[in-house]
């Protein structure tokens, strides 16, 4: 599976020597939906144990880029990706790579909470069961409990684990989806506007959770809310019309961005 070119390996090592370790490296990533081009040669690296926020106006390609990171674009008819994306040292678009294993390593939380129409327990146990992570019932119980705790949902649902996951409130459902993603023990978690369907209180809880998850996971989050990007992320990348405009430390991005377009977008002059 280790099909990475020597140059890329060297580059990754270079970065490591500069004391920054990159979990995922995207090089010249372009995406086409049929004839239409959605991303133009994006070069964006994702740092380990960091929250990277992708911002930009609607249709700028930020969600598209996010979905290239675990090849969810494969499920869309007529979608084509060029360029190279590596996870650690593996080229994830290598024909030999197992997309199923990739998605186990790079989990995803979606915009709309999408719990399966099963019990809370079964929702969390779904991933571990598929990947055979639990050897016994007690193993599985432990994984479920730990995942729900990490998602900050354990105390709210521990007495009704066998009730339907769809019966929870929107915010609880989204945290259930996060627990579901966490249960597979991924290395990276991708979040596609995870709070856009939630009320402010539920949003605050999820943001707090993202903050805690950073210790164990690398997180990439797409958001429409500038405040949210500023609150939860350490690095921010700004997309516009399918191009990566700027990628920088979040603090710098929101105070003194390099690019005029970033400045304009953050100040609300377009988008």
């Amino acid at each position: 599976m280790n099909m990475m070119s020597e140059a890329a390996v060297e580059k990754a090592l270079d970065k490591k020597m500069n004391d920054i370790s990159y979990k995922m490296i995207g090089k010249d990533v372009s995406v086409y939906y049929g004839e239409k081009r959605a991303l133009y040669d994006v070069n964006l690296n994702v740092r380990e144990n960091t929250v990277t926020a992708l911002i930009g106006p609607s249709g700028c390609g930020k969600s598209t880029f996010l979905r290239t990171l675990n090849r969810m674009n494969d499920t869309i008819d007529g979608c084509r990706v060029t360029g190279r994306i590596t996870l650690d040292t593996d080229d994830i678009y290598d024909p030999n790579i197992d997309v199923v294993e990739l998605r186990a390593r790079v989990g995803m939380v979606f915009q709309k909470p999408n719990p399966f129409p099963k019990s809370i327990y079964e929702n969390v146990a779904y991933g571990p069961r598929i990947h055979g992570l639990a050897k016994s019932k007690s193993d599985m119980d432990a994984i479920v409990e730990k995942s729900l705790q990490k998602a900050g949902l354990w105390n709210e649902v521990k007495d009704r684990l066998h009730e339907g996951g769809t019966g929870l409130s929107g915010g609880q459902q989204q945290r259930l989806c996060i627990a579901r993603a966490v249960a597979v023990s991924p290395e990276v978690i991708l979040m596609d506007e995870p709070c856009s369907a939630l009320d402010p209180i539920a949003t605050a809880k999820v943001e707090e959770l993202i903050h805690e998850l950073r210790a164990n996971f690398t997180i990439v989050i797409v958001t429409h809310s500038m405040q949210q990007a500023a609150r939860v992320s350490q690095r921010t990348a700004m997309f516009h019309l399918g191009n990566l405009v700027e990628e920088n430390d979040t603090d710098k991005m929101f105070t003194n961005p390099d690019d005029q377009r970033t400045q304009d977008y953050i100040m609300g002059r377009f988008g």
Partner: protein
Amino acid sequence: MSISLLLLVVAVIGAVGYFIGSWRANALAGGKLSSLHSRPGYYGSFVALWAILPAVVVVFVWVIASPIYVNSTIRAGFPEEVKAEPQATQNLNYNMISAIARGFKVLTAEEREALFKDGAAARDVLASKGVPVAAEPAPYMLKSADDLNRMTNTSSTLLSILAIVVATAGAFLSYRSIAPKFRARNRVEGMMLVGLIAASSIAILTTVGIVASMFTEAVHFFNMVPAWEFFFGTVWDPRFAAAGATASAGQFGLIPLLAGTLYIGFVAMLVAVPVGLFAAIYMSEYASRHVRSVAKPLLEVLAGIPTIVYGFFALVTVGPFLRDISAQLNGLVTGNYSNFIQAQSVLTAGFVMGIMLIPYVSSLSDDIITAVPRALRDGSLGLGATRSETIKRVILPAALPGIVGALLMTASRAVGETMIVVLAAGVAARMQLNPFEPMTTVTVKIVNQLTGDLEFTSPQTLVAFALGITLFFITLCLNIYALYIVRKYREQYE
């Protein structure tokens, strides 16, 4: 004026009403359309509807009521000795009168006068004009026929005048009510609603009518044959009696037919469900858009083939094939080359019916599987599940109630199927468990009992209605249960 011409005139009045209505509205607006409550077209439609609808109702009622009135008046004019005769004879007389009345219309006035003077020649004269009359008409009949014609003419003239007056009055009154603040749009909307309700009630009332007519005939049957003998009888042997004989009633046991129906339906579902379901899964989950756009219509072509054609297929291809292959198999195993599958058998009928049902299963299930939200698929794939794991663990459980509903609807089709069974499983009503032997179904026996010379007073014929209502009840239950399940499933995602 004929009815169609009359309706045309009413329509023309309506069209004129539309134009003057919108013209009037435009004039009231005086170039400022915003001062009107509705756009001018609505005022026009309002006038047109008021012109057309009441007039059409009048025509409709008149067309039904006037023959009844004419009929009773003519009968009231019968001589006393005719009135004393039984109802059936009176009916015959009335039919003769209307035949003569029809004949009068093709005669010239002189010829008619001649007939009145010399009634004896009436039959021959009418026959020479191509109007057959059953017997030599009695003198009073000629007069009645003349009355009949006169009354019909008067009725038609009256109707024409009335309808045109109603249409004009409707147009005029509604035209008068046009004012800038008048809510023509809401009124037209209301009338649309009435029209839609009328359309749906026609469908419902027809169903009620069908059930009622079957039910009354079935009640006649149950007066002759006890219900328990029908529902629990195990022998089907409805001997056709010679005309007039009353003794040979035969046996009308439903059980063998019901068993055949369910058995053949079961075999059909055994074929259709896996194939159809897998096809649906392939179409909705795996096939690329290109393949889907070609394969799905092709699969649905199967649904467009008339069932009698499937019957041919069973009769000339599948049946003989199964018979021959069974003979070969038997020969290989025992050395005795005799077939153990009959050419007409439960298996043949079930198999071919199953093929017929594949498109129903696949098309209904495809819709249901596609309706499972994409978010659930993404969620599962995003956790690293493969496609088949996603289908098995998330999509099928989520779609299951809907699929069960679809299968029940398919089953009710299987129960109601006739032509394939006639050709593929034969008409022998037998009770047995061997799928290689012929059996038959309820629908086939209904056709059987209702073909040929019928006497609608004998149980042999009336049993068809009892069978029909039983079948209707079975499919109704299946459909209601299916709808209930499908509706419950819909609520999950809303």
